[in-house]
């Protein structure tokens, strides 16, 4: 058996099962990242409520989902929940696990983005007579979004790699598809090289798209850094 067999390599590269796996990896990454952004933003907003219970919830949530390995969460969702009468399909368990495990990272990004908006912006909103919710929605959140987008974009790469773990609960994403080919052909090197190439390619495409987006909208991002550069009033934030 040759060390490297090009025909196996090319065969794997365009193998329908691999291409289906690539597609599964891509949509799983997008869907769960978007859901994690929704969940993480809600968690971050809860964490900002001025209540001890909310702050405990936030700390506990972030600590719990950061401390538990994604693999454990996935097996728990897929194999332990049925014991409690909750039966999830592979896809459901994969989506829920990937979303929950990513959400604390999003929550931290969103939370620090919100605190990066200068207190003077809150003040300006209050002085006009906006209610706190309006200030958050129309003044602070749009600026926090501009601050959060670059770090959230980087989370895509983490999430892309995380999807490989759902192979453990038998979801046929890229890594599982690769593994299946290996089981059939015993050509590990060629198959893993193909998987690696696809992961690299997806990361490269995303990174390029993200940079292009940030460059094309640089004025949009600058609008917030301009706010950060304005001389800030001393921090005075007592609500009447």
């Amino acid at each position: 058996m040759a060390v490297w067999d090009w025909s196996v390599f090319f065969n794997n590269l365009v193998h329908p099962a691999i291409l289906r796996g690539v597609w599964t990896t891509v949509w799983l990454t997008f869907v769960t990242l978007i859901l994690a952004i929704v969940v993480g933003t809600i968690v971050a907003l809860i964490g900002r409520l001025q209540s001890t219970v909310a702050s405990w919830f936030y700390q506990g949530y972030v600590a719990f989902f950061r401390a538990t390995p994604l693999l454990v969460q996935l097996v728990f969702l897929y194999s332990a929940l049925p014991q409690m009468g909750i039966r999830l399909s592979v896809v459901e368990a994969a989506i829920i696990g990937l979303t929950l495990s990513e959400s604390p990272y999003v929550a931290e990004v969103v939370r620090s983005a919100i605190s990066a908006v200068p207190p003077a912006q809150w003040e300006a909103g209050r002085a006009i007579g906006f209610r706190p919710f309006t200030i958050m929605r129309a003044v602070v959140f749009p600026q926090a979004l501009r601050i959060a987008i670059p770090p959230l974009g980087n989370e895509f790469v983490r999430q892309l790699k995380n999807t490989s773990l759902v192979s453990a609960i038998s979801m046929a994403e890229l890594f599982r598809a690769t593994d299946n080919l290996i089981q059939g052909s015993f050509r590990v090197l060629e198959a893993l090289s193909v998987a690696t190439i696809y992961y690299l390619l997806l990361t490269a495409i995303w990174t390029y798209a993200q940079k292009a987006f940030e460059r094309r909208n640089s004025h949009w991002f600058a609008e917030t850094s301009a706010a950060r550069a304005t001389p800030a009033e001393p921090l005075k934030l007592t609500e009447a």
Partner: protein
Amino acid sequence: MSLSNVTSQSAGPFIHLQNVVKHFGTFTALRGISLEIIKGQSVALIGPSGSGKSTLLRCINALEQIQSGIIHVDGERIGMRETAAGPKPLSAKDAARQRQAIGMVFQSFNLFPHMTALENVMSGPTLALGEVTAQARRRALELLDRVRLADKAASFPRQLSGGQQQRVAIARALAMRPNVMLFDEPTSALDPETVQEVLNVIAEVRATRMTMLIATHEMEFARHAADLTVFMEAGAIVEIGPSSEVLTSPKTERCQRFLAGLSGNHAAHRM
């Protein structure tokens, strides 16, 4: 807070502070301020840095909560509501409603950087008052024209000079149709060459008989644009009187020394 003229005039001074005390922790920033301003009056607040000018302005629109004393604007008690069990702090919603009638202009402009000049000026009427967009836009354009920035309606704050940003900020405050305007050192963060354009706009606001308070280091401006001048030091009012008197022949030695220090070191009065 749009009481009719009859009500506000019969209720005495338009802005009425009685023994206002403000603490920051153990530090006392305002030590029992009493002040009466009648409708349409323009009042300059002067005094050394740290004397409590900003704090006083911020208490008047309840950006700061006071520890004792009473503030009334247009007959309404600021930041508090009367209940059977004594005065209670207003809810965030009611405090917001009170601030809608009190315009505030900050030293550092504090425009919303993600909105154009026009959107900044429209933001109050649309987001706080629920005015329809077309109407708010028409009025915002009028206001931008009044501060001579009609051609900058589509510019973002970062594309404007400090003086232009501050004029947008004034238009933004006026868009709420306030009956009081508070200016907190509106020209202190500006390049010298843009100070005058902002002072001119403020003088025009005054010409509409707006009741206003201006913390400022521009003594020349205070002299001709303020009916009254209040000299503060260490959280207390040391001297108050017609601007022409307080600024040209102050009675108290401390005010004399403050004004002498300014003219002796003219460059420092922007600091």
